[in-house]
């Protein structure tokens, strides 16, 4: 690290991370509220109805961001878990554990909103289509990760064991992503790709992006908050914890 740049490794020290996260959380929380407000206003009021699906298509403004976050957070969690396992960085373990519940929540919401969207569009709440099934399996993977973490009393061993599980499970995420191409099923193909222009109206696309950003900001805020609590628990005997808890709420 150069002298002038930000010294990122500083924040792998629990005390520094705790302070930084405490300062960042309000900003991310504010961004979350602002982006959700704008995104929902655009999505529910400004964006036009779909000529085929009517107003029920508006569920995608929740459905797509939650599905993306559900999948992406699993990869992120596995990455943090791998970093924690390989380089023995405790903060990475804390982050991996903190991401899991948020990822599980998003995956559940994606399934839930998908079911609500499926009823008017396909006529049923649930179909055993490849992508839905993969999403359900992803939810099970999150639950397995959290269950294994909770079952092992020793914290370090719990982190390492569930890190192995997360890395094994991450093999499943590409299967989810490519399942639409692999199996010929009900779920529509992806409308947004990096290489081509989106096949939806610009206003819908912009709204969707704002909602995705909002989901991102929410994840960052919540994960940081959860990581802070986890840190306090892990390091409850450390001096920095006692200093901060006695010295006020910061």
């Amino acid at each position, binding site marked *: 690290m150069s002298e002038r740049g930000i010294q990122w490794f500083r924040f792998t020290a629990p005390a520094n991370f705790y302070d930084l996260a405490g300062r960042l959380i309000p900003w991310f929380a504010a961004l979350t509220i602002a982006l959700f407000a704008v995104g929902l206003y655009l999505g529910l009021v400004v964006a036009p109805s779909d000529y085929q699906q009517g107003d029920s298509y508006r569920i995608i403004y929740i459905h797509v961001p939650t599905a993306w976050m559900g999948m992406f957070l699993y990869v992120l969690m596995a990455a943090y878990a791998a970093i924690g396992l390989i380089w023995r960085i405790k903060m990475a373990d804390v982050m991996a554990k903190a991401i899991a519940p948020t990822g599980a929540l998003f995956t559940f919401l994606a399934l839930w909103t998908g079911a609500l969207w499926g009823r008017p569009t396909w006529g049923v709440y649930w179909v055993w289509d490849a992508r839905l099934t993969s999403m359900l*399996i992803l939810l099970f993977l999150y639950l397995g990760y959290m269950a294994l973490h909770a*079952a092992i009393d020793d914290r370090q061993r719990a982190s*390492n064991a569930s890190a192995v599980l997360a890395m094994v499970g991450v093999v499943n995420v590409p299967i989810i992503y490519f399942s639409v191409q692999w199996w010929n099923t009900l779920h529509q193909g992806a409308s947004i790709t990096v290489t081509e222009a989106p096949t939806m109206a610009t206003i819908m696309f912009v709204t969707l992006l704002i909602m995705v950003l909002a989901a991102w900001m929410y994840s960052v805020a919540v994960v940081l908050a959860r990581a802070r609590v986890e840190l306090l628990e892990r390091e409850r005997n450390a001096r920095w914890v006692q200093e901060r808890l006695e010295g006020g709420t910061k």
Partner: protein
Amino acid sequence: MFHPLLALLRRDLTLALRRPQDALTVVGFFVVVVALFPLGIGPDPEFLRSLAPGVLWVAALLAVMLSLERLFSDDFRDGTLEQLLLVPEPMGLLVLTKIVAHWLITGLPLVLVSPLLAIQLNLRPDEIAILMLALLIGTPILSLIGAIGAALTLGLRGGGVLIALLILPLYAPPLILGAGAVDAVMHGSSAQAHLSLLGAMMVFALFATPWATAAAVRIMLD
């Protein structure tokens, strides 16, 4: 270098043969579960036939899952597993040897008994052949993936239930492909695509899972 591995394989097989009830329980479970399905859904032969691939595969993977806990737990309890860590052979190969032994004891009997159950569920001979082939390729995958779960739950309270939650989601791809192979033959198309993918999956699992299992064993014995 293969000598210690052969010794380990012989030891595991001998232990299993001295206590055959362990392996027989798994086969018994497989048979009983399959026998319960007609009681639950009715005796209509055509209907049972259409459900047969899925029923047989789900029963097989539940049976394998039940047997997983025993893969490492006895060796863990009497300290053999710690001794294995000291053996100069790579831990991945040792683990693979134990998995092979486990498959020979539990997976192979399932493959051999499956035609009997398939006849009960009205499958035709060519479909039964594909079913056996799919199980022959697929059950090693179940043992290989399951070993990771068995290692991760070593010494935990309620480990058996936890294995189910950890491992069953990962069993989805072999289940889809294995049952799909029989389904394909039933509907008059070739099972080759399914079997090829299943084979590819087995090779990948053979290559990757022993190392993950070895890492998990090390963590849990730490």
